[in-house]
Every structure is written in structure tokens, then in C-alpha cells.
């Protein structure tokens, strides 16, 4: 855990920066990356042409929303909170994009800004009334779902044309999904580790009281973190809309579990204060690729859900034994 000393002194600043060659941090990252390599190689052995440009495109397309959802969850978890509403939040963003952004772009943009503000308001409620985030977000998830159903009672709508044509781009070297995932990871890294906001968020996760003692407002820090998370969740909503070419308020509900599992798999801790963007992205990719792999292995759709649960249990148990041995 990073020591907390938020002052303008140079040494204090450096202690909050990630130190580059700390053995246990490298070790923490080995497991998600090894798991990712393992799942990837297994997928290749089942479906040889998955390594082609088009194959990689298909394989990583469905991973984009999971990666962005995991980053959103990671920001909240590094604060020491948890967001049980991220799945329905993405679902609501998906519906707004598929309905309003197509028909009335101006209104759509306003709605998306309103969505970020609503999440910030929720964070203020959590701070001011000291409501635990787990139950506040559980309650809020009903509001996201309800509003989503209000806008779009049955699945429908379409992806805005600019969004679907953007997703058909074929950039050099790697297919678009890989660039998007890398871009999301770099953006999250820059925000969490290279800006003042990120330092405050991670500091708050380490020790909220100590941070408050330095004169930082809890309300402000939490509001900033929730705003950052909401933006990443909305980006996940864009990805869902592009991939599915439609809106559905309930289709994204699984992302809540996937995002939490991705963060924990990537080395995050429910105690907060710890975050590794590489870990989060790798964790999210493992979870997404396992889903694709189960499909390729012809596991029946009713058993896929359970197999995913089993793999989550195995990998997260493995990560715990791994980090304990390292201590």
C-alpha cells in the first residue's frame, strides 16, 4: 500500500508515484498476465485463425466494454468503495446512445452528461449521509434500470452511423478493439498515476481520514472519482452499442460481476488504495476471453454461465495463494 503523505514536498510526491522496480508489484502482475497468456494460447489452439487480423478483431471486440467497465469499477474500488450498479449504468448509457444519440444527438449528449452528474450526486449522497456505497449503488441500479426501461421498454434502437463506421475502421498493426483497449488502459494509467485527481483518489483509498486531515474534502475526492468512473462506464456503453448495434437496458447486467472480478483478478483490493491499470486490463481480458473460449469449445449455453463462475473462483483463489506465497 502506498504511504500517504499529501504535501507539496518533493519526497512526499515521489512516494505516491509508482516505484518502477518493486519486486512484489511485478509479482502481483505476473498472475493476471500469465492467465491472459494461457487463455489466449488455449484459444489459438482451438481456433487457429483467431491470430489473423480479422480473428483478433472478433476475439477482442466483445472485450472492449468489459475492459472499460473494469476500469470504471477499478477507480471506485481503489477509492475503497464498490459499484454494484455499473452493469445497469452501462445498460442505461447503451439505451441513451441507441435511441437519443441516433434520433436527437443534442438531447443524447445532454442525457449522457446528466448521467455523469447523476452518478456524482450519488457520490455526494454517499459522502454526506455516510451511506455505504454497496447499498447506495444497489439502490441506484434500480433507478438506472427503470430509466432505461422507460426510454426503451423492449430492446431496439440502433448504433449511430458514425459509431458503427468508426468500429469498422481497420487501423495498422492491430485491429481497432486492441487499440481501444490499449488506449483505455493508458488513459486510466495517466488519470490514476499522473494527475492530482488520481493521487487524491488512491490516497483516499489508502486512508480517507488521513487525506481528510490534510484538508482535502471527502465529498470532492469521491465526486471526482465517481465522475471519472462514470465517463469510463459511458465509454463501455458506446462499445456495447457498437458491438450489438442496438439498445437493451438489461443486456449489460453481467458487467457488474465481470468488472469486480476483473479488478480483483488484476490485483485490486476491496480495502482500496491499490490499483494497477495493467492488472485491471489483463484481468478484464482474461474474463472476456474465457467467455469466448467456452463458446469455441462448444460448451452448451446453459453450462457456460456456471463454467464462467467456476473459472472466476479458480483464478481468484489462485491469485490469493500466489500473492500469499510472495509475502
Amino acid at each position, binding site marked *: 500500500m502506498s504511504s500517504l503523505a499529501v504535501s507539496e514536498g518533493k519526497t512526499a510526491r515521489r512516494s505516491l508515484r509508482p516505484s518502477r522496480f518493486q519486486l512484489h508489484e511485478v509479482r502481483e502482475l505476473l498472475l493476471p498476465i500469465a492467465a491472459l497468456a494461457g487463455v489466449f494460447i488455449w484459444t489459438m489452439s482451438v481456433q487457429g485463425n483467431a491470430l489473423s487480423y480479422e480473428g483478433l478483431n472478433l476475439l477482442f471486440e466483445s472485450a472492449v466494454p468489459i475492459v472499460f467497465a473494469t476500469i470504471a469499477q477499478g477507480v471506485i474500488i481503489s477509492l475503497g468503495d*464498490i459499484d454494484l450498479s455499473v452493469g445497469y449504468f452501462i445498460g442505461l448509457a447503451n439505451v441513451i446512445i441507441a435511441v437519443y444519440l441516433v434520433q436527437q444527438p443534442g438531447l443524447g449528449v445532454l442525457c449522457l452528461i446528466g448521467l455523469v452528474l447523476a452518478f456524482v450526486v*450519488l457520490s455526494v*449522497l454517499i459522502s454526506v*449521509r*455516510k*451511506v*455505504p456505497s*454497496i*447499498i*447506495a449503488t*444497489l*439502490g*441506484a*441500479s*434500480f*433507478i438506472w*434500470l*427503470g*430509466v*432505461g*426501461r*422507460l426510454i426503451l*421498454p423492449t430492446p431496439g434502437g440502433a448504433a449511430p452511423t458514425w459509431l458503427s463506421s468508426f468500429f469498422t475502421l481497420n487501423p495498422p498493426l492491430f485491429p481497432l478493439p486492441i487499440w481501444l483497449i490499449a488506449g483505455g488502459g493508458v488513459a486510466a494509467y495517466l488519470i490514476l498515476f499522473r494527475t492530482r485527481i488520481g493521487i487524491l483518489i488512491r490516497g483516499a483509498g489508502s486512508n480517507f481520514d488521513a487525506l481528510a486531515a490534510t484538508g482535502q474534502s471527502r465529498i470532492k475526492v469521491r465526486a471526482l472519482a465517481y465522475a471519472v468512473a462514470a465517463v469510463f462506464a459511458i465509454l463501455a456503453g458506446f462499445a456495447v452499442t457498437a458491438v450489438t448495434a442496438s439498445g437493451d437496458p438489461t443486456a449489460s447486467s453481467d458487467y457488474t*460481476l465481470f468488472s*469486480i*472480478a476483473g479488478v*480483483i483478478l488484476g490485483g485490486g483490493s*476491496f480495502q482500496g488504495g491499490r490499483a494497477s491499470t495493467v492488472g485491471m486490463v489483463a484481468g478484464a481480458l482474461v474474463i472476456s476471453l474465457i467467455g469466448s473460449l467456452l463458446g469455441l469449445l462448444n460448451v452448451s*449455453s*446453459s*453450462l*457456460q*454461465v*456456471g*463454467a*464462467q*463462475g*467456476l473459472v*472466476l*473462483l479458480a483464478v*481468484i*483463489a489462485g491469485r*490469493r*495463494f500466489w500473492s500469499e506465497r510472495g509475502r
Partner: protein
Amino acid sequence: MSAVRGRLSGASRWLWIWSALGAAALWVGVILVTGRGAGGTLVAALQISSFLVLVGLGQMLVIASGNGNIDLSIPNVMTLSSLIAFSVAGSGHGSTLAGVLLGLGTGLAAASVNVIAIFLLGIPPIVATLSVGLLAESAVLEKATGFNQVAPPGLQNFVTEQVAGIPLFAIVVVVVTVIIGWVLHRSSFGRTVLAVGQSRPAADRAGLHGTAAMIGCYLLSGLLAAAAGIALAAFSGPSTSLGDPYLLTSVGVVVLGGSMISGGRANTTGIWTAALLLNLIVTFAYDVHFSVAVQDIFEGAIILGVLSFGGSAISG
């Protein structure tokens, strides 16, 4: 500091009054909107709430043991147990008792997987129980293909029977509530649960078997979820989405009822008032012809509203 803490815990102890007042207001609202009798409305609310109270009690025990414990496998465990019970006892063929016992055993088995994942493998309870929920969901989907059983008549009579105008099943659940309240506050198991929920290190130093108490809570939660699932399926018919609404509401009744989400304090009376509140919200929203969407928003808003009234008392 201790004075502040004392004041807060005092406030939290009476938080259930808020949900009781809310439930009473909605009760009056439903009577005014529909013109139905006051007694009939209350009886219907008692009947529907009793299923939620049963799962809420299990969730309350788990949450009371603190340390991040929460059981998010409840919805799928409810559904799976009811399908297993009905596949043996359904439609009045096989023995109803054998079916019910097998269903309850399913709940215990699922809870045991939770226990192994959390205490043997060291997986955080949120992730562990959600993953076990996925396992149970798979079993539900497998079991449901070609499933055409209906409730055994004996069981159906049991959950719809009324004694002196009061639903028999609600009376049974009141008795269960009283027993759990007694166990929690008077037995050594219950006191260990609350002690370990308040402070794990303190409970350990006092020589209490904290882990055993937590395991007991998960097993009881699985058992109660199975019982509620079987009863609910007998009442409203089996379905693969039987337990789905109970993910939010099982946690909701614990918090709205004045138990502390961080553990260490539990309130069994509050589970009843909160369950009545949540069910009367749905009844009211239905009676004033809100769409499903508005019902969701209404439910979420009321939960957040009550939380912001008593919020600082909940986190302790």
C-alpha cells in the same frame, strides 16, 4: 468519540421506525387508491412479505457477521432449490416431504460451496457468492429444460392456508423471526456472530470461534433461501427467474430494517417492517398503474430516500 458512537447507534436502533412509518403510509395510500378493505390489503402484504422476510433473515445473519460478508447467491439458490424440490415432489407424484428435504439440502449444498470459496480459498464474499450464484444459475438452466412440474397440492395448501384470516405461512415466518431473534441475542452462537461482526480481532482475542459462526450464518442463509424459494414457487408457480428480484431486496430489507451493513448489529423486527415497505411500494405502484419501469425507479428512489434519512446511522 464514544458519546457520538452511542448516539449514532441509538439512532440506528430506531431506524426501523422509518420503514414502519413508510409502510403504514403506503398501506393507507393503497386503500385510498383502490378502495379495497384495510384488512385485505394488510393480509395480502403479509403473505407476499413473508417470503422476503425469510431470505432477509438469512442475509441479515450473514451481514451481521461483518468482515465484508454478504450472500449474493440467494436469488439463484432460491430458484434452484424450488426446481429440485418440485422435480421430486411436483404435481403430487413423489413424496412432498422428500422433495422439500431435497430442496433444503440443495440450499445447504450451495451454501457449503460459498463457505469453501470464502473460508478455504479466501475469495472475497462478494465475488465468491456472485460466482456461486452463476454456478446455481447454470444448474437452473440445465434443470429447467423440459421442466413441467407444478407445485404439490399439499405444499400449495400450506402456503395459501389462512388461520383466523391471517396467512398461516406468515405466522410460521413470524415464529422463525422470533427464534432467530432469540438465537442472535441470547445464544452463544448469536453473540459470537455479533461480536465477530463488531470486531474480528477482539472476538479472536476473547477466544470466540469467529469463523465457525460466520460459516453457520452462510449455511443458515442458504437453508432459509431454499425454504423461501420452495414456498414462493408453491405460491406463485415455478419459474427460472423466481429469485431474481431478491438480490436487491434481500440486502435492502436488512439495511432499511436498521441492521448495520458493516455488521455487528442486527434487527429482526426491522426485517418485517422493511419487507412490508418494499412490498407495499410494489403494490402501490401497481395500483396506480405505474409501468414496470416507473416501479423500478420508485423502488430505487425510496431505498435511497430512506438511506439518506438514516444513512449515518447505518454505517455506524
